[in-house]
Every structure is written in C-alpha cells, then in structure tokens.
C-alpha cells in the first residue's frame, strides 16, 4: 500500500519533469551547436542579444534598488491595507502579458493617462528602449519583490530586535543585519526576475514595438524569425535557453546557498504556479 503510494509520487514527478523538459530537448535536437554558434555571426542575433542584455540589466538595477527597500517595508511594517498592497504587487504575475502591454500604453502612451504630461516634458516612450525597460520592470519586478518580502519575513525577529537594543539605527539594522541574513532568498528572487525579464515578450511588443538594434530583444527576434527562417528562430531560442539556464544554475551553484535556495525556490514556485508563461 505504502509502496504503491511512493510509486505514484515518483511517477507524477517523472511526468512533470518529462513534460517540462521535452520541448527544450526537442529544441536542441533540432539545432546543432554549430548552428547555435553560427547565430553569433548574424547581425540580427547579436543586436538582439545586446538589446536584451542592456535593457534587462538596467531594468534589474531599478528593480533591486527600489524593490529591496519596498519589500523590507512591506515585510516589517503592519498597516491597514498591507495585504491589499502585497496582492497588488503580485498582480502582474497573473496578468496576461498582452494586458500588461495595453495597460502600459494606456498609462504611458501618447494618448495615455500621463501622455500629455510626458509630451510637455518632451518625452515619448513608445518605440524606445525606455519602453522596453518599463515593460521588463512591470512584468519582472513582482518575481523579485514577493520573494524579497518572504525572505525578510522569514528573518528571526529576535535577532533584529537584539540589534536594535544594542543601539543600531534602523538603517544599520537593514544594511548590516537584515540584508545579509536575507541574502540567499534575495539572490534567488533576483535571478528569477532577471530570467523573466530576459524572456519578456508580450508587453514589449505591444508597448515598445520591434525594431532591430533598438527595441528588438531576443524573444522578439525569435518571433520575427519565425516568419523568415525557422532554423534561425530555433537557434535563437536555444540561445535564450542557454542564457536562462546559466542564470538559474549560477544561483544554485554558488556555495552556501543550496539549502535555503531550494526552500525559497519551493515556496516561490508553489505560490506563483501558472503565472510564468509569456
């Protein structure tokens, strides 16, 4: 009886892993490593890679700089409406990317909510790299912020209290105690947000459009190549998979992070399942 149940669990795990990995295996069966490397010679691929790395890196810096203190505040303070605020932060996780794109247009487009104000300032966001960065921040930041909130909440309150009673200012408690202790969880959230940002597609194509060397990121280049050369699209897809896997592995392999990493990844995955499709 018990063995039967164990077997059932093992089968479920195998099916899950096989289903998730099969498309990736199929991708690499269709693209030889030579074709993959050959893409490095194509201008469209290289420019898309550069646009992707630049926009996602800038977006990531913004996410970390604003998201970390925001998450700390939401994790440590109790105030009316706190649950609602956290729910709002999670909203982009479950929003279809096309809706995110329309929303960004409705807010920052020429005819959007802030359109006139931006025009007065001489700023026009659609079709620019700034629009790509905004789209990435919108869809990727919740991955980091919610993980950061969970990491800060998991800190032992007595340790923080001890630091305070020893005379540390709240800024010092944040920088010297909370940040280092939450580091592992923050890193996982950071890697996931970056990976999600690199894969961002739907909001970008609606809000920023697609132009080689300007707004065409790797996912947009893959989409564009589907119309021209399926092999190139496959190779670019393989390229993106390699980069994303490298990012996630980096987090897993860094020494000392393993145990807490798996716990927080698990917590993350459980509470955001079904929301990562792009």
């Amino acid at each position: 009886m018990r063995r039967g149940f164990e077997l059932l669990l093992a089968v479920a795990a195998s099916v899950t892993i096989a289903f998730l990995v099969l498309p990736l295996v199929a991708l690499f069966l269709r693209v030889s490593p030579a074709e993959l490397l050959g893409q490095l010679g194509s201008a469209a691929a290289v420019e898309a890679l550069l646009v992707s790395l630049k926009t996602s890196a800038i977006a990531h810096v913004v996410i970390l700089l604003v998201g970390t203190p925001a998450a700390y505040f939401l994790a440590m303070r109790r105030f009316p409406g706190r649950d609602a605020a956290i729910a709002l932060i999670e909203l982009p996780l479950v929003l279809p990317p096309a809706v995110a794109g329309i929303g960004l247009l409705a807010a920052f487009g020429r005819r959007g909510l802030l359109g006139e104000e931006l025009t007065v300032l001489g700023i026009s966001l659609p079709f620019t790299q700034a629009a790509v960065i905004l789209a990435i921040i919108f869809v990727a930041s919740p991955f980091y912020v919610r993980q950061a909130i969970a990491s800060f909440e998991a800190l032992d309150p007595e340790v923080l209290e001890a630091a305070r009673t020893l005379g540390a200012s709240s800024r010092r408690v944040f920088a010297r105690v909370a940040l280092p202790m939450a580091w592992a969880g923050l890193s996982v959230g950071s890697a996931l947000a970056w990976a999600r940002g690199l894969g961002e597609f739907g909001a970008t194509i609606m809000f920023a459009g697609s132009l080689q060397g300007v707004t065409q990121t790797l996912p947009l280049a893959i989409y564009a190549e589907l119309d021209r050369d399926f092999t190139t699209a496959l190779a670019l897809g393989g390229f993106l998979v390699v980069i994303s896997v490298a990012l996630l592995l980096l987090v897993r392999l860094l020494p000392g992070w393993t145990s807490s990493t798996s716990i927080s990844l698990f917590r993350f995955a459980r509470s955001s399942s079904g929301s990562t499709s792009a």
Partner: protein
Amino acid sequence: MLAAASLTDVLPEVDPGPEYSFGGSSELATQIREGAPADVYVSADPRLARALARGGLTSAVADFGANRLAVVVPADNPASIREPADLARPGVRLVIAQEGVPVGDYAREALRRLDLATALDRVVSEERDARAVVGKVALGEADAGIAYATDVEAVGSGVRAIEVPSAAQPRIGYAVAIVRDGAAARAFVARLLGAPGREVLREEGFAAP
C-alpha cells in the same frame, strides 16, 4: 483553414462553416512545413503558396482576388500626413511590417517605386502583419503605417487611409491551395473561387486578380 490575416473579415462570410486560423502568410507557411494540421492554405503571397506546392506540401495553387496598399494614419492625423511623400519627413513615426512577410515586402517595394527610401529611416517598429500595423496606428502611437487598403477599411473608426498612387502599387494577389485533400477542402475552395467568394471580396473592397 490557415489563412492570411488580411482576409479575417472575408473568409467567414464566404463560408461560415470551417474553423479558421488567421495569421501572417509566411508564419502560416512555416506552420504547414512543421506539420500543423490544416486542410486549406490561403496566402497573401502566391509565391509562398507556390513554394509549398513545389515542396509537395499542397495541391496546385489557384489565384484569386487582389488588394492595394494604403498609407494609414490616425483619424486626427497628428503628423499631418497628406501624401506618401510626407512619410519621409523627419520626426514622422512610421510603422510597417517586417521584411519577409508579404505586406512588409510590398511596403518596401512601394517606397522604392516612390523614390522614398529615406522613409525607411522613419520606421520605429516592424510588425508581423498588416493588422498589427493598423493597430499601432489606431492606438495613436504611430503617425502612419503602410498596410492593405482593405485592413484600413476593416478597422474603420480611428484611422484614415491615404491613397498610394497606382504607379507605385505592387501586384498584390491572393492564392489558395489544398493542404489535405477532402470533400470539405474542395467545397471551400470551390466557394472561394466561385460566385460567393467573388461577391464577398468585392463587397470588402478587394479587386479581381
């Protein structure tokens, strides 16, 4: 039925029966090459259909219908575009379809014929099909786009069409081919090429080939 996006409003009127999947003609051709289940392929670029036929993936190809290009601008025309030559003015935000999809190649050909290659420097985004081009214009984010005249009419409010002179018009025709032979596929092609198809095409602003 895998069919060109520019026929979205046409085919269900010709024959409401089948299930349609509309998209860019070249993307649909890719899907057929990758083995997507389909009975009929309706393409905005006869060359794409003929390439599939040569590869043995479809039956012989039949031509039907014809379309024209138009410059599309938002109804309030913020960049005051009055003729195609205005597209090359500095500061104009132009959207066209990408190279390799029919409407994108046609747009480039028209600009070449108009001696307006500089207009390509005004392109702020390259879209996947004609509908996406009109969409960006209808949202008011782009000052102008180049799409099929019939797409501009289909969207209606919010956008306005500006004529592209006949001398600059590339030859734009449609083609249909049977992917998986069967009674349903044959009946559909017969309707499309026959009187019912011709009538709907004329009503929607398409010309005869």
